[in-house]
């Protein structure tokens, strides 16, 4: 029994236990503990992984002539770490007062825990698969487990979950087509056979494989133009469920791309694959898809008025950074892209938890109905502040390090326009997250929220811990880069020569230890200068400049609606919802065809049409011969 077998058995046991005791009150606590044990089992394998030695599984099947086996590689270990970490945090959060409140409002926290356990099991199986068949089977299981998690809330969420399902099954079928093509070419579904079959492929075939595998995995990841399902589906999943989905679920698509396109096929192969009649290669296409995935969803997020939709749209946008970094193919970019997966998981989870806490206390996540909660919920505010600094990619949080690595890579590889695209994404993110924190926590406190208290300790503790992780990995990014080096080696990419504080080179270095310490020092000096300047009197929020008017509690004195009017006005002609139009056009065509098909089966005298069709077919075909 290898350590990997122990881990997989543990997660199966977790699923079964959760299933059997899902109606118990202590179910959530049990699952959190079990995820913690799984995390420890994972960390037990860390020394072997650090040296790049994969941990095989003792279990293997032979089905219809196909071998299925599993192994924990460094890439799998990295993603599994994030998965289990997110699972621990989400399960913990769901087992607190939030779970009781959710049950009281008609939800089923037990079902949520079961869905979470299904997701963890299927994701671990996906990450550890060592052949194409196991990959596909676990890919489908992951898709359906995500569907279960999204639909577990019932009601309006089911509609968006069904929308997701169509996309997910379509993506799965694309991957299946790719796998079938590989099988037909080589007669085997092992990774080695796949790599061997690629060497003799024509350009057209290679494009087909890229589109099938890339497209299939891109659906899960939410790359443009296959992203329309993600924001609404993730936002409507109940609290910790959306944190889990946003943190790691869509990154399974990135895992697929890394495994199949980067590790097995190799980026060099796609660098030589040219788009006909243009000077662009397949890698350029991927890079620009990533760039547009950064920009467009970020500015869609800017226009959202619901906090959870806003965060979900940012989740889509940040995925673009990860792909962009990886596609660059050098040590800096790929390290940045991979580190961004980890960083994003940490601050996205913190942000979703914070928003959930506000929803728990106030009952709404509508940004136009909130405000001023910083005085009532300071811990949630701090968690959100650290989260948004991380999301925006500003020092001293960890988001800055991964973005810095990606920017350096873009400059060094000579892609100025992609650099500008990435920067536009960051700027849009800063604007958008400021609106989030301002409309929620800053500004005027509403009368109906005067009595609100901070979320209970059980809910704020995970937030605080996640924020601490965000800050700590920002301070010492070497801790995370240490896990990434073996991944880069496995993927066949150049390995980053990292330091504990970041990266040293003659062409520009980053040492976060110095940066964060100097920032803290600067703030300390600023604080000294501030508090040395005499006492300030605390005044009530209604004691405010209002052009000579008296403010009272009934006066709404908050600027939250249409927070960036000039930008919205300027961007409005560009945001014609083109992707949604495209999607609805496709659906309309399908409905038309479907109505036609239904008409065939409703016709009163089919024999006549039959005869007519037979005569026509005879004429056409007989005439041809």
């Amino acid at each position, binding site marked *: 029994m290898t350590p990997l077998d122990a881990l997989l058995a543990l997660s199966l046991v977790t699923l079964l236990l959760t299933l059997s005791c899902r109606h118990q009150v202590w179910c959530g606590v049990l699952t959190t503990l079990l995820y913690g044990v799984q995390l420890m089992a994972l960390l037990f394998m860390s020394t072997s992984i650090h040296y790049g030695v994969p941990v095989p599984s003792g279990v293997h099947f032979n089905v219809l002539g196909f071998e299925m086996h599993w192994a924990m590689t460094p890439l799998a270990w990295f993603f599994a770490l994030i998965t289990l970490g997110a699972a621990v945090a989400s399960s913990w959060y769901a087992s607190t007062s939030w779970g009781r409140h959710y049950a009281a409002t008609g939800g089923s926290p037990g079902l949520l825990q079961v869905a979470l356990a299904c997701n963890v099991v299927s994701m671990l199986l996906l990450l550890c698969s060592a052949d194409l068949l196991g990959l596909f089977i676990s890919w489908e299981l992951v898709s359906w487990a995500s569907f279960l998690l999204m639909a577990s809330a019932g009601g309006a969420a089911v509609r968006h979950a069904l929308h997701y399902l169509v996309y997910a099954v379509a993506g799965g079928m694309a991957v299946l087509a790719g796998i079938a093509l590989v099988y037909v070419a080589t007669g085997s579904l092992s990774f080695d056979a796949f790599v061997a079959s690629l060497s003799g492929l024509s350009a057209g075939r290679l494009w087909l494989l890229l589109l099938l595998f890339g497209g299939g995995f891109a659906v899960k990841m939410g790359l443009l133009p296959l992203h329309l399902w993600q924001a609404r589906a993730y936002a409507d999943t109940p609290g910790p469920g959306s944190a889990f989905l946003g943190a790691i679920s869509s990154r399974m698509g990135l895992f697929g791309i890394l495994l199949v396109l980067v590790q097995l096929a190799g980026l060099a192969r796609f660098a030589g694959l040219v788009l006909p009649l243009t000077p662009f290669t397949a890698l350029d296409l991927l890079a620009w898809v990533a760039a547009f995935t950064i920009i467009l969803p970020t500015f869609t997020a800017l226009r959202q008025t619901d906090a959870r939709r806003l965060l979900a749209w940012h989740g889509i946008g940040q995925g673009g950074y990860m792909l962009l970094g990886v596609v660059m193919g050098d040590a800096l970019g790929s390290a940045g892209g991979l580190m961004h997966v980890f960083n994003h998981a940490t601050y996205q989870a913190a942000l979703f938890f914070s928003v959930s806490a506000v929803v728990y206390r106030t009952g709404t996540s509508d940004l136009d109905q909130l405000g001023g909660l*910083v*005085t009532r919920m300071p811990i949630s*505010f701090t968690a959100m502040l650290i989260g948004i600094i991380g999301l925006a990619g*500003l*020092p001293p949080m960890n988001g*800055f390090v991964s973005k810095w690595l990606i*920017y*350096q890579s873009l*400059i060094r590889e*000579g892609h*100025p326009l992609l*650099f*500008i695209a990435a*920067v*536009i994404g960051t700027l*849009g993110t*800063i*604007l958008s997250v*400021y609106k989030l*924190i*301002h409309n929620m*926590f*800053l*500004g005027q406190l509403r009368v109906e929220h005067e009595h609100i208290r901070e979320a209970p300790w059980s809910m704020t503790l995970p937030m605080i811990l996640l924020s601490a992780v965000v800050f700590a990995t920002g301070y010492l990014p070497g801790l995370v880069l240490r896990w990434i080096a073996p991944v880069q080696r496995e993927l066949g990419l150049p390995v980053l020569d990292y330091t504990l*504080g970041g990266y040293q080179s*003659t*062409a*520009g*270095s*980053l*040492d976060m230890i*110095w*940066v964060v310490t*100097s*920032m803290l*020092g*600067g703030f300390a*000096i*600023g604080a000294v*200068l*501030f508090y040395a*300047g*005499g006492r*300030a*009197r*605390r*005044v009530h929020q209604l004691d*405010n*400049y209002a*052009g000579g008017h008296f403010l009272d509690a009934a006066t709404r*004195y*908050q*600027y*939250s609606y249409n*927070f*960036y*009017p*000039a*930008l919205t006005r*300027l961007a409005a002609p560009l945001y014609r919802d083109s992707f949604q139009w495209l999607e609805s056009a496709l659906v309309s065509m399908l409905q038309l065809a479907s109505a036609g098909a239904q008409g065939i089966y409703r016709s009163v005298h089919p024999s006549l049409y039959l005869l007519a069709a037979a005569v026509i077919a005879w004429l056409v075909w007989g005439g041809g011969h």
Partner: protein
Amino acid sequence: MGWGSVLLEVTLMPLLAFATGLLLVLMMRRIRARLERRVGPPFFQPLYDILKLYGKRVQISHGFIHDLGIIMVVGGYITVEMYLPMPGMDGLAAHGDLITLAYLMMVPSLGMALGVGQCANPNGSIGISRALMAMLGYDIPFMLVIVAAATLYGTTSLPDIIAAQQGGGMATWGVVTMPVMAIAGLVTTHVMLAKEPFETYVAPAEIATGPMVEMGGKFMGGLFVVQAFQVYTAGALYTTLFLGGGTSWLEFLPKLCAVMFLPFAITVLFPRFKAGEGLLWVWKWPTAIALLGLALIYLRR
């Protein structure tokens, strides 16, 4: 570099930057005065203003985040100065490069935004909204300048960029090797200062000075300090990238004043853009010039 010299540089650089910034603020006010046919304030006026503000008896605060905002603005700029090389002092520039500097410069804006947010005044929030939109505007040509400089010099480390320019005399200055980019950079510097015609976020008649509406006393004093830092940083960054820094203060100071002269003069002559107009203008002209400059750099490679 021993710990002692590091500590010395880290303390001196913000102080010198502050002092030089005060000088530049004075220059700005004198130029405005002269163009308006006045004499202008005395030499130490900017310092007197700050001391006056800090000495006010009645100072109001709307909460801890209000205080934290000002701390973050001042502290943030102090940190920025540690990473911007001065003649004779590189500070911490070896540990954080040009990109880090650009992002560190966004931290004070965020701090200000947070502090104004807790003031619970819509005028302030509108001002911050406009300020952030303006930041979205100027950061695009600014980042284009950064990527051009990084591409041309082959490094993002500021001491190396300065050394590359000082090595070959005036012929290797950025102004000479990438002239179109230098023009874009100068326009961007003006926009960054958020002075007329890009001063929409203040707009005294429209939104009651925007973010400053509930700032008084030491809060306003802190913002005045930051103004000095801001003017210095913009000028010093441009000088570092395009004018070869300065081997000594005798060379550095005139360069700074020369760079800032044009923006200061122009700002007197113009009224204010409307909120969206400024954004559109910045996305058109400086961006176009910067893109042209970038294309020229790439063509020459």
